[in-house]
């Protein structure tokens, strides 16, 4: 200890030291820019492909709503867990959060989603609710109603030959409306996601 007691007494009697001791408070630190905050809109045009809603792990966190200037995803802060999957899954780059969007651009990473439908043959009552509720079916065949029987074979699924047949699984967008409408929990949609990285080709 090279300094003596009188040094400390002189130091503490200074007005500057007293002012700092009694009045200065450290301000709460700023949030760094690389923190994964709630996703914000970038201003790019949203095509309402709903890829962000399909990959979100929390119920009720993100919805794509239509306002007067077009479709936009809306995040609810009380539900969103700030995971950043919707930012990475969007093909247009409509959402941004921290450094996720620019890392995705530099690393060429992404998610490849496919959707598969499975029907439990024992529980299915062939009521046709799923075929009528499916929004893709509505676009393909607007006349499809009343227990899901019809003559159009371009729909994803319909009641044909006495049972529910899945005709075009590749058109499924994974919205799970059929799963929620089924009264017996017979039909299930699997959202299969694969995390891929396509490195840039040289030359």
């Amino acid at each position, binding site marked *: 200890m090279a300094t003596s007691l009188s040094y400390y007494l002189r130091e503490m009697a200074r007005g500057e030291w007293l002012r700092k001791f009694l009045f200065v*408070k*450290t301000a*709460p*630190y700023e*949030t760094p820019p690389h*923190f994964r905050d709630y996703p914000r809109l970038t201003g790019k045009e949203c095509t309402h492909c709903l890829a962000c809603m399909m990959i979100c*792990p*929390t*119920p*009720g966190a993100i919805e794509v709503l239509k306002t007067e200037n077009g479709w936009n995803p809306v995040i609810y*802060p*009380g*539900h*969103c*867990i*700030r995971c950043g999957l919707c930012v990475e899954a969007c093909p247009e780059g409509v959402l941004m959060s921290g450094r996720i969007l620019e890392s995705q651009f530099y690393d060429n990473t992404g998610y490849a989603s496919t959707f598969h439908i499975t029907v439990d043959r024992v529980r299915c009552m062939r009521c046709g609710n799923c075929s009528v509720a499916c929004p893709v079916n509505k676009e393909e065949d607007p006349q499809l109603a009343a227990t899901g029987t019809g003559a159009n074979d371009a729909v994803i699924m319909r009641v044909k030959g006495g049972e529910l047949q899945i005709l075009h699984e590749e058109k499924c967008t994974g919205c799970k409306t059929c799963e929620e409408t089924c009264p017996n929990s017979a039909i299930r949609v699997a959202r299969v996601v694969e995390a891929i990285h396509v490195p840039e080709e040289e030359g």
Partner: protein
Amino acid sequence: MSFLQSIKNSVRSKSIHVSYVNVGSCNGCDIEVLAMLAPRYDIEQYGIYVHNNPREADVLLVTGAFTPQWEDKLKSIWDKIPEPKVAIAIGNCPISGCVFNRRGSYVDPPVAKHIPIAAEVPGCPPRPTEILNAVLSLAPLVFKDYEEKQS
């Protein structure tokens, strides 16, 4: 506003005692509350003292999605706290159940059904700065002119 009331206002906004209760959380939000004690965020410089005694507290921090075991106990803890008091819900779990709000789980969100919540800090978990802002801005508002509001 009498002189005594203004003294009470200034004392209550500069000396806040906090107690926290975990009604079924994953500990992420509790660790962020503990991180506020660290010299970096330093909650004690504002006069906020984090202990765990409901009898001496002004502010109750609630974390966690409500599990069935706490149904009677949370109400009794809330009743033990003397007036004036305020409860703040930290994190997504007391607001909406976070990811646990699925069919088949034991949780019963939101916590506002069981005790009156005055403010919510969303996030999973929220940053210590966000919690600090909530506690600092809410407490003086609630405790200001408390006696005059009662009459």
